C-alpha cells in the first residue's frame, strides 16, 4: 500500500539530490548512480558500456562526486546517507529521462 506522506518526503529528497547531481557531468552522475544506488563494484562500473573507464578513474570520480554531494546536501539542510524509501524510483525516472536527452545530444558528455 502506498504511503502518500512518505512519497512526499522521498520526492523532496529526490529533488534535492537531483539538483545537487545536476551540475555534474553525465559520466560522473552515471558512475555515482551505479555505485551509490546499484551498489556495483568499481570493476563492474569501469566495464559498464556507458562508462568504459579505468578502475582508478572510477574511484577518482566517485570520490569527487561524494565530496560534492556531501557539501551540496549539507548546504540544503540534508544529511548524506541511505536513500529514503521510494527515492530510488524517482531518481531512476529523472536520470533515465536525462540520459535519453543526453543520448540525443552526445556533445553533452564532453561538458
Amino acid at each position, binding site marked *: *500500500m*502506498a*504511503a*502518500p506522506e*512518505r*512519497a512526499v518526503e*522521498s*520526492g523532496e529528497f529526490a529533488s534535492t539530490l537531483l539538483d545537487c547531481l545536476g551540475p555534474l557531468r553525465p559520466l560522473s552522475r552515471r558512475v555515482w548512480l*551505479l555505485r551509490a*544506488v*546499484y*551498489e*556495483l563494484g568499481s570493476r*563492474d*562500473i569501469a*566495464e*559498464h*558500456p*556507458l562508462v*568504459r573507464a579505468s578502475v582508478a578513474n572510477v574511484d577518482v570520480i566517485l570520490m569527487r562526486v561524494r565530496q560534492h554531494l556531501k557539501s551540496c546536501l549539507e548546504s540544503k539542510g540534508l544529511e548524506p546517507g541511505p536513500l529514503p*524509501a*521510494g*527515492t*530510488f*524510483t*524517482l531518481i*531512476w*525516472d529523472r536520470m533515465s529521462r536525462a540520459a535519453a536527452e543526453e543520448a540525443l545530444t552526445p556533445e553533452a558528455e564532453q561538458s
Partner: protein
Amino acid sequence: MNETPGTAPGAHIGDDEFIDLVSGFLDDASRARVIAHASACAHCDARFREISATHERGLARAAEALREPADEPRVHPFWRPSVALLAVASFIVVAAAVFLARPQPPPAPPCDARPRAVWLPSAVSEGIRRSGGASQAESLVIAGVQAYGRRDLAEAERLLRAPLIRSALDKMRRLYFREHARGAGAQRGGDLIARLALR
C-alpha cells in the same frame, strides 16, 4: 510478490513489468503508472532497485565478456606469447646454424691410435764414441744405437736391453729403446718402457 499490476488495486508491481521498464519496453502511460506506484511503495521501490542493479550489473559483465582483444591493455607486440616464442625459436635456429658453420678443427686421433715411430738420428753415436772412455755398458748402448740406425731392430733391442747398470748413456738408451719399441708395436713398446723405467 510478482503480482500483475492493474489486476487488483494496490497490488505490487511484478518483476516482469519492472524488467520491461528497465529495458525501455513500456509505453509512456504504463511507465508513468509504474513509476507513480513504485515511488510511493517502499516494497516496490526496493524491488525495482534490485532488478535495476541486476540489469546494470549484467550489462557490465556482458560488456566485459564480449570485450574484443583490441580493448585489452596495450602490450608491446614483442611480449605477446606467440611473437616471443617465435623470436626465441628463431634465435635458437640461428645460433645452431652459426655453431655448425664455424671452422671445424682437425679431428682428434682416436684414443687407441698407435703412436707414430720417430727414427732418431743414429749418427750421434759416433760422436759419443769419440768422446772416449766408453765403458762396456756404454759400448753396448752405442752398438745398439748403431743397429737402430741400420733399422736392425731385433739387434738394437737386444743390445739396448742388455745394459743393466746405469751409465751416462742410460738416458740415451731409454730414448732409443722407446722409439724402437714404438716402431715394433704399441703394446710391446709400452711393456718395455715400463720395465726400463723400473730399473
